[in-house]
Each structure stands twice: as structure tokens, then as C-alpha cells.
């Protein structure tokens, strides 16, 4: 079975979810492009969009239509060539519409898992629940005569566990997209000891067709991305809890969030990032990873507390941020949650005072938006952090410690053989988390 044939009958599990819908979109476009090749004329391509929720599936086509239209508009020059033999399609408008129709026509939304029995490739993007994943894989594989390949989007469960428990020897790998898959260029690729080389090769070709940057990760719970993020988040929480010994909790959260965003020049502060991913998801991923870690406890009682209080963060289906540790108004942080009062406290009521305690940013500070465009990363950040080290403010101290810890996490991912090398760790954080500089550096030594 060649590349095109492998992609003739595909199923996406959890297709209406945030990750699943993005994977569905990219796969639908790739399959449509294949189906339009002259040698594939007359062949049928099928993409099953399988999800538990009929409601969510009903909104899927609206999302796909909008996204495919945008993609088609960008490649109109190529599409005119693709449809050159269609005399009825004359204007860009006609051609783009036809392409959108051709992409959408491949997609079959359903709540019935049975349709996956005929697929030769299964993408899995259901919730981070190992047992659920195993159950779905087993059921499909028992009825599937194609010896289907399974690509799981898990960000935390070791692939070999899924492989063993579902009986998928050599036919499964981790193909971990970052959120949102349509935009984020990073994919973590995780193979097991037995993954067939043909499966891996196909995955690399598929990633290349989608123009993704592939970073291989060893098969260790959390892989590189969450391996860094979860520990980084725990450190941020720890810093906040320590600060909260001397000042109100909301101020501590505000300060650590500010330090991790502005002082460390990241796109978001750590509490905002936890909210973005979802407090529930972070807690869940830690729970999945924890049993696999030796001499390390990946757990936060603060996250448990927030979950008990029903404060979860995450995003609405519109992409708008839900309130979590922080309260948002059109993307801007306007409050911090006080678990004792079970209410948000306005940032305005304490921000100025906290900012004064933290102290000023180094004079060479460039905000993240500008800093990511700087080509000579070392040339900018080495003196920036050197300047920070010479400062006596609380903000500078917290930031240096935070940066050191992030550095240690990165290096440990390599020494623990989760990542193949330092460069892979940095690529994941630069590409998948949009950091302006890699965590493994010499700025904090």
C-alpha cells in the first residue's frame, strides 16, 4: 500500500474536539489534494469524522468550511492549475468553491465507531484517558481487516503501553500535534521499539506534506513538550505558593505570572498558559505522567483545589479564553482568583503595588513580540539576562531562578533520554510553545 492508498480510507477519533477537528482539517485537505491528482481520478477517498457528540459534529462543517476556504484562497494559483481541465470553473471564486466542496465531500461525520473498521489509517484525538484509547483501538482492530495503522495524538501516555494493551505491535506511533494543529508547525513523533519503519516513514512523509516541523521524542510519558511544561508549571506554582507566605495569594499569582511572561520574555505567563491549556487538562496530564516517573512527584494540590472549586480555565468553542487562575476580558488579564473568597479580585486593585515590589525590567528589555523577530538570539538575550543578574530586585531574582529551573528541566529531558539532544528540546519550546529562546542556554549559569 503506497502513500496515496494509505490515505484513501482514514478515520479520525474525537474529530469534533479541539485537536481532532484540526487534524481532520489538515488530513481532509491532504486527501483532497491526492484525490485531485490525475492518477487518482475515479478513486474514492473517505475520511470518517468520528465523535461521541452529535452536537459537536454538527458544528464541524462550519469550521471546516471556513478554514478550507482560507487555505484555498492562499493557494489559488496552484488550484487554477489543478482544475485546468474543468471548463465550467472559470473565476477564482468558482475554483475555490469547488475545492472547498471537494474537501468537504470526503468528510463523513458520524457517532458510529464501526465506520473505522474499513480504514487503513486511524488518527486518535480523544481525551487523555489511556483506558478509553485502548478500548477504542481494540474494538476497531478486532474488526478491521486492513491491519490499520494507528496515529495517536496523546501528549502524555507512553505509546508502548497503548501498543501492548491494544495489541497493535509495530502499527502504532505517537503523532503529537500542538494546539491548534492547523496553525502550530510542531509535531512530536514518537515510535516504540517495535514500530515498523514503513509506518514511521509514512508519518514523516505525511508531516512533510503538511509542512510540519517534526521533532522525534523518545517514548517517555509526557514526551518533550509536556515533559517541560508540566515541570515548569509546578515550579511556577511553587514560586507563587512561597510568595503567598508573605503576601496575599492573588498578588503572588499575579507576580509569578508577570515574571514568567515579561521578565522571561515569553508569550504568556505560566498561569495564563495553564488556563489556556485548561487546569483540568494539566491536572490530568500530570496524573497520567506521574506513575511513570521515578523519584519525582508530578502533582499539585493547588490544581486539585482549583478543580474542586470548579475553576477550570480552557477555552470556549469560539476560541475565547475561559476564566481560570486569571480572569480575562477579550484576552487581557483583569483579575486573579482567590480560592478563599471564591471570587476574582481586580488586578487594578493591587497591580501597581506588586509591580513596584518586583522592580523594573532590564533596560535592554524587548517585549516578546519584538524579541521573537530578533535573529541573533544570543546577541540579545545573553546581555539581557546578564543585566538582569546584576539587578537586586525581587522580579529579577524570581526570573533568574525561574530561567535556571527551566534550563535544568531541559537538560534533564536529554539526560533522562526523553529527548535525543538539546536541540530537539529547544525546537519544541521554540516552535510548539513560541518561546523566543530555547530553555537550554547559558544565560542563567
Amino acid at each position, binding site marked *: 500500500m503506497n502513500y496515496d492508498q494509505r490515505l484513501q480510507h482514514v478515520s479520525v477519533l474525537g474529530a469534533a474536539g479541539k485537536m481532532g477537528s484540526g487534524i481532520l482539517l489538515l488530513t481532509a485537505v491532504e486527501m483532497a489534494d491526492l484525490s485531485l491528482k490525475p492518477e487518482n481520478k475515479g478513486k474514492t477517498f473517505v475520511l470518517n469524522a468520528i465523535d461521541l457528540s452529535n452536537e459537536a459534529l454538527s458544528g464541524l462543517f462550519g469550521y471546516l468550511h471556513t478554514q478550507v476556504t482560507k487555505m484555498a*484562497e492562499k493557494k489559488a494559483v496552484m488550484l487554477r492549475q489543478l482544475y485546468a481541465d474543468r471548463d465550467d470553473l472559470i473565476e477564482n471564486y468558482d475554483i*475555490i468553491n469547488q475545492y472547498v466542496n471537494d474537501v468537504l465531500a470526503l468528510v463523513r461525520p458520524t457517532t458510529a465507531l464501526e465506520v473505522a473498521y474499513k480504514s487503513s489509517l486511524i488518527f486518535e484525538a480523544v481525551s487523555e484517558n489511556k483506558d478509553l484509547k485502548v478500548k477504542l483501538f481494540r474494538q476497531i482492530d478486532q474488526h478491521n481487516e486492513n491491519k490499520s495503522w494507528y496515529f495517536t495524538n496523546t501528549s502524555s501516555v507512553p505509546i508502548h503501553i497503548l501498543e501492548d494493551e491494544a495489541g497493535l505491535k509495530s502499527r502504532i506511533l505517537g503523532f503529537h500535534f500542538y494546539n491548534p494543529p492547523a496553525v502550530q508547525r510542531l509535531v512530536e513523533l514518537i515510535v516504540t521499539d517495535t514500530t515498523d519503519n514503513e509506518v514511521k516513514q509514512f508519518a514523516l512523509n505525511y508531516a512533510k506534506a503538511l509542512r510540519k516541523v517534526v521533532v522525534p521524542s523518545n517514548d517517555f510519558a509526557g514526551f518533550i513538550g509536556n515533559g517541560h511544561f508540566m515541570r515548569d508549571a509546578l515550579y511556577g506554582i511553587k514560586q507563587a505558593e512561597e510568595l503567598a507566605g508573605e503576601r496575599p495569594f492573588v498578588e503572588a499569582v499575579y507576580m509569578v505570572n508577570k515574571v514568567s511572561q515579561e521578565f522571561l520574555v515569553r508569550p504568556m505567563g505560566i498561569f495564563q498558559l495553564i488556563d489556556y491549556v485548561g487546569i483540568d487538562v494539566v491536572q490530568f496530564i500530570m496524573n497520567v505522567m506521574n506513575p511513570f516517573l521515578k523519584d519525582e512527584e508530578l502533582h499539585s494540590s493547588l490544581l486539585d483545589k482549583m478543580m474542586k472549586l470548579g475553576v477550570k480555565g480552557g477555552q470556549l468553542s469560539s476560541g475565547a479564553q475561559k476564566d481560570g487562575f486569571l480572569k480575562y476580558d477579550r484576552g487581557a488579564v483583569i483579575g486573579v482568583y482567590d480560592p478563599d473568597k471564591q471570587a476574582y479580585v481586580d488586578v487594578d486593585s493591587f497591580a501597581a503595588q506588586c509591580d513596584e515590589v518586583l522592580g523594573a525590567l532590564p533596560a535592554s528589555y524587548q517585549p516578546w513580540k519584538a524579541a521573537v523577530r530578533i535573529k541573533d538570539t544570543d546577541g540579545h538575550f545573553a546581555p539581557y539576562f546578564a543585566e538582569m543578574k546584576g539587578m537586586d530586585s525581587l522580579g529579577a531574582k524570581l526570573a533568574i531562578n525561574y530561567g535556571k529551573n527551566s534550563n535544568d528541566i531541559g537538560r534533564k529531558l536529554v539526560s533522562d533520554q526523553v529527548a535525543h539532544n538539546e536541540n530537539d528540546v529547544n525546537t519544541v519550546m521554540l516552535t510548539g510553545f513560541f518561546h523566543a529562546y530555547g530553555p537550554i542556554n547559558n544565560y542563567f549559569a
Partner: protein
Amino acid sequence: MKNMRRKVYMTAGYNTISMGTGRKEFNPKKERPGLEYYIKEAGQGVLKQAGGADKVDESVIGNFMSARFNKQAHLGGFAGAIDPQLEFKPSLGVEGACGSGGLSLITGIRSILAETADTVLSIGVEVQNTVKAIYGADILAGAGYYDKRKHGHAYFFPGQFSDRAGVYYEKYGHEYARKGMCRWFVNAIENARLDPTAQEYHNTIPDLEGLYHKMTPNGKAFVDHLNVLDCSKVSDGASGIVVTSEEGLQRMDIDKKDAVEVVGWAQLTRNIVNEPPNPVELTTIKTAAKRAMEMAGVTIDQIGTVETHDCFSIAGILAVEALGLAAPGKGAEYVAEGNTSRNGKMPMNTTGGLIGWGHPTGATGVHQAVTLWQQLTGKAGDAQINIPADRPYGLSINMGGDDVTVVAIVYKRG
């Protein structure tokens, strides 16, 4: 026509802002003023200077594709929206692709010459930012022969002029041509920075030349031989001017020194069904300019400034050759040496032209007349150039389609 039976003037010009990318206030995601707003602003801007709508006998509105950009045809009906006193007077819409503005002027000139009117309100308008560029390309492709659309480029007109540029590169040298085209672009932006209504008025990029050469044409994303800086802008805007007789000037109480005289004109079309006879020559422009200057009894050496239809930088280079300012193949050099810059031998497009001021397609011909009226009467503000006493003429070249409809007009200080 060799001689005009009656003197024809233009006065009281007005331009709206050319709105679109480049203007700080432009936000494609926010609702913006539409067609009616622009027609009214330009019309009322002219009437204010003309002393009121009661002085106007007739209105002409030039527009290319409002029927598709704005789902609105029948623009002649908007005269009454400019001013109630224009209602129940003659008013009509004219169309000749991007030469529609020029046709609006010509229609006014003909009315004056036919003595059916003494003052004609001539307007040009286009509001194009209603659709994304990729669909705008479909709409603008209507200026070409529809039978060729299927096998044309996604960006149809950039594709047409990219092909012309490709032949020019092959014939005269790639680097040589790009150098001239780059200078054309730089001149356009530098001139636009002097006119507050220009779309590139806010442009502060320090190294325009560096920027231009960095952007290598990429046929996969756009067209083979042009980058986006070689192209005119996608614009919303309108311009207006009064075309009038001596009696009309008196009626409006406007002195001749505040008007320009139309001393020669030509309006020609090439067969739209055929390919251009020569890809590196703008044959219709060449013919029309020659006839207009013959009618005016002047040669190109007597012209003090030119407004030409630089929908693409290559069209600017080819116009230089078509007007006889440089021999075939020498246009790029002529421009690269600075001859067409505002302090050069022949200042061209002194408020930015289509690349710098903007290209609200149906308005462009009228905008050119307004610029020449401003320059020849000393009303161009910061963009004012010196018009030598021995060269008191201006020439405008407005083109529709790929050198299909051309309007050439020679103006003289009033």
C-alpha cells in the same frame, strides 16, 4: 477632430482619501464607508468650490465594477444624492474598465463641445475593499476578454503585465529592467508621502530600494515577474472635477488662472478580443498620446508634467517609451536615472500615481485630472512641483484593461 469649436476648462477638483492598506485608519475587519459616501464626498467637495449645485448642468459618474464590488449599478442615479439640485438634471454613468474616470472627463468635454452643457460635474469612483484580493482579481479581470479568463492567471491583470515584464526582461535584461521598475516604485512612494489623501501617505519605510529588491517575484504565490510593490493599490476612493466652458467659469465666478484649459484629447480603443500587437509596447497609449498632443499642437518637450496609468511599474516604464520620452528598451534607464522623479526632466505621477496615491479603478482618470489641475494652478500643497514657464502643459494617460481603452488629455494653465 483637429480643433475644438469652443474652449473647454477644468476646475474645482477634489479627491477623497484613497483608502486601503497603507492608511493607518484602514481596518479591513471593520465596517467602512461605501460607494454612496465616496460619491457624495467627492461631489460635494467639488460643488463647494464651484459655488453650488445650481451652477451645474449635468453629472457624469465614471465607475468600473460597482455592480460586483458593491452590488450596485446605475450610478447616474446618485447625482441627486450629492445634492438635491442635481436631481431632474442629466446624469449618467460611464464604464471603460480602469479608464472609466477618463471616460467621465471625455463625456463632460463632449457635452461642453456639443453645447448641451456649460458645466459638467465629472466624478470617478470605486470601492474595492469589499472583497479579498483573490476575488477582487476576478472582478477586475472583467477588463479583459472573458474568453481568456479560464487560462489566465489567478491574479489576472498582474499576470498580463507580468507577461509583458517577462518579455521586456528577456529583450533588454532582467537586472536592467528591475532597476528602472524599482526607481518607479520609490518615486511613487516618495511623491505619495507629500499628499495627505494618498494611500501611501503614512509610509515611513526608510529603505524603499532595499525593500523592493528583497522581494523577489514568486510565481507560486503571486506572478512570475512582478512583486506586490510593482503593483498599484487596492483602493476605495473618489475624485471629482468640473468640466466647463468660458461661460461656465463666469457662472461659477472662477478665474481662468484657477482653471486648466483642455487643449487636446483623444479616446481610443484597441480590439479587446486580440492580444496586444507588441508585448513591450503600449500601442494604444502611444497612438492616443500622439493624437492628443497633435490636437493641442504641442510636442512632448513642451509638456511640464505627466500623469500616467502605472497600474504596474512596468506600465510606467512602457508609458515612458510610448510617449516618446525614451526609445524602445530605454525607458527603464530613463526612469532609473531619475528623469521621471519630481525634480527630474519630466516629473511623472507627482502625487504618487496608482502605486503611491492609490488606484480606486473607476476614479483614477479623474484623480489624474485633479492632480494636473493642482500642479498647473499651484494648488498641489507639499506635492507642488515647479512647472517651467516654457512648458505650461500637463498630459494625462488613463488606461482601461491591457491597453484597450485609453484616454489622453493635454491641459494648459488657464
